[in-house]
């Protein structure tokens, strides 16, 4: 097993919301008590419904939003207390790709300038010829030709813009690449191209990937482990095929059952098996297990007791009071 590149300990991110209530602003717990070890060289998927805290968690890793509680340990060093100036040199190793490819590229800069920008900041020793070489090299690696450097973002399709965004993030050869819904805005045929590109880059450069997505089928193809979030809390963490074939948490089971499969022999029977209800307000989460209001297996105990996120099996963590009784028995 490889070493931990990034460790989150009891990470919480709270946002103050709206009006003062009895002199105090209510707090929205977007991320609550997350423990996670990200291993060097792995691709870890973060999944869960909209609003469950995926982006906030990713942003907290980058210190784009500061944690309210807990620690963010990057290569052995606590970074949640560093000033912006102290963080700057670390940014070279921590890069991000966003969901909306066009909106994340500055429309007034050429593709060459966009991709070269991180080099100007973090590798000042490079002269313009050196920068040009690096830019051409990374553009080639993401499947674009180097002669696009004088063109502007609006001249490119969504898929091409996403390749440009990936080139900009990869030009410094970061140790960690965070992808926040990088394929969600793209056409189906283009999604597969980008997933395969990320796989190739990971194989060639060996970077670690934190892959945020609501598309569980895409996550399965790309990631070695998957973390399931609900209302900002970790529900389950396991190696990918293990999680998809033997999910231990009722929420994971519900999520997986909801993903449509393009096969008329399989899909009609799945229609009625998904989760009922909707996400409760994060401002007043349910007592006990936060999932209990939608859990088909909830009991009175689940109302009172908060399940601890712990190892059910080696390398398989789950936060459910009943995982043991509910576990699929006669499966491999």
């Amino acid at each position, binding site marked *: 097993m490889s070493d931990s590149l990034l460790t989150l300990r009891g990470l919480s991110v709270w946002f103050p919301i709206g009006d003062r209530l009895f002199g105090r602003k209510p707090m929205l717990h977007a991320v609550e008590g997350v423990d996670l070890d990200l291993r060097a060289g792995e691709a870890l998927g973060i999944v869960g419904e909209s609003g469950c805290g995926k982006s906030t968690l990713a942003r907290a890793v980058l210190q784009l939003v500061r944690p309210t509680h807990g620690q963010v340990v990057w290569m052995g060093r606590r970074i949640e207390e560093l000033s912006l100036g102290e963080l700057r040199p670390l940014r070279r190793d921590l890069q991000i790709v966003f969901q909306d490819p066009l909106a994340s590229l500055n429309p007034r800069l050429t593709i060459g300038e966009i991709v070269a920008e991180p080099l100007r900041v973090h590798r000042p020793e490079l002269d313009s010829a050196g920068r040009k070489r690096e830019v051409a090299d990374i553009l080639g690696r993401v499947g674009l030709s180097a002669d696009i450097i004088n063109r502007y973002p609006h001249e490119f399709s969504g898929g091409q813009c996403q390749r440009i965004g990936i080139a900009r993030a990869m030009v410094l050869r970061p140790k960690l690449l965070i992808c926040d819904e990088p394929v969600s805005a793209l056409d189906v*045929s283009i999604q597969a191209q980008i*997933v395969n590109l990320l796989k190739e880059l990971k194989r060639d450069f060996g970077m670690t990937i934190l892959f945020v997505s609501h598309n569980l089928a895409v996550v399965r193809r790309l990631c070695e482990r998957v973390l399931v979030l609900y209302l900002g809390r970790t529900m389950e963490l396991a190696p990918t095929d293990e999680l998809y074939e033997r999910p231990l948490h009722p929420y994971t089971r519900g999520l997986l059952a909801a993903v*449509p499969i393009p096969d*008329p022999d*399989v899909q009609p*029977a799945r*229609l009625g098996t998904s*989760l009922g209800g*909707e996400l409760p307000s994060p401002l007043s989460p349910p007592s006990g297990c936060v999932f209990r209001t939608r859990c088909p297996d909830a009991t009175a105990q689940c109302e009172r007791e908060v399940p601890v996120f712990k190892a059910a099996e080696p390398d398989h963590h789950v936060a459910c009071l009943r995982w043991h009784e509910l576990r699929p028995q006669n499966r491999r």
Partner: protein
Amino acid sequence: MPSTPATADLPAAGHSPMTTTAAPVLEIEDLSVRFATPDGEIPAVNDFSLTIRAGECIGVVGESGAGKSQSFLAVMGLLASNARVAGRARFEGRELLGRPAEELNQVRGSRLSMIFQDPMTSLTPHMRVGEQISESLLRHTSTTPAQARARALALLNRVHVTDAERRLDQYPHELSGGMRQRVMIAVALACDPVMLIADEPTTALDVTIQAQILQLLAELKREQGMAMVLVTHDLGVVAGIADRVAVMYGGRLVELGTVRQVLKMPHHPYTQALLRSMPRVDEPADAPLVTIQGQPPNPRRLPPGCAFHPRCEQAQERCRSERPPLVERDGARFACHFPIEWGAPA
């Protein structure tokens, strides 16, 4: 065979039988939609023909710009002002295209309803939910306001809105996205339409909420015998409830058949490529993900011949110059010079 996740271990349910003998509800023939722009004309939809029969659900799939939405907006008379329409669209035997707005309004929202991806664009923001549903009833039927309110409540319950009584007096922005889509469906159902056109009704929703809405649509189709058009880019969505599937590419229908014909034994290389490039959640991590090179065509610059030829692995010389006609075989239709052969149908 890919292993199926534990949660999918349920007895297989069949699709409703093909309704080839049922009466046609909507007959679209040679529909074309062109947009006049300062840079010339955009052929968004070309020679599109499709018949939808009572009680059947047709899934219409394709990537962005394929012409899915414009085809059905044309039928509804809801195209932008720079659009030019040609062809025919008969609904319950009466021509819709070219009809004056007042006449169309009698059909729209009563016999024929449409719902969209973003309910916020079709719900009126400053109008209570109950009023929005009643409005359609008061406009199309002879109902008293009290009856309309009672019916609105029944409809909200019908689409499984929780706490329906209270929701009647709420505004759209006070509801979640899934709840809004349910309200939108309730509005569409108000006058017992014989046909519902749903354009990406679940695209903006979480998978869990999407599954709930799809389940609701399947239930409405089953219990009310409503004909349905489900426009989507997700082949998984159509697999669950469509009886037949139409595949569009570059403004044209390129394949049409039963859901099984199209998703299990497609004749068109584009359909097959689309299926292969879509990862399935029940396939292991190391399953291959075949990509389609290039990108969907811009309708301003459609490639000559077969519009798919620059991306097609089967393409030959003829594909570059000669557009393949839509041909029929075993009740399925496809437009390809060199279709995929599957041997005798099983």
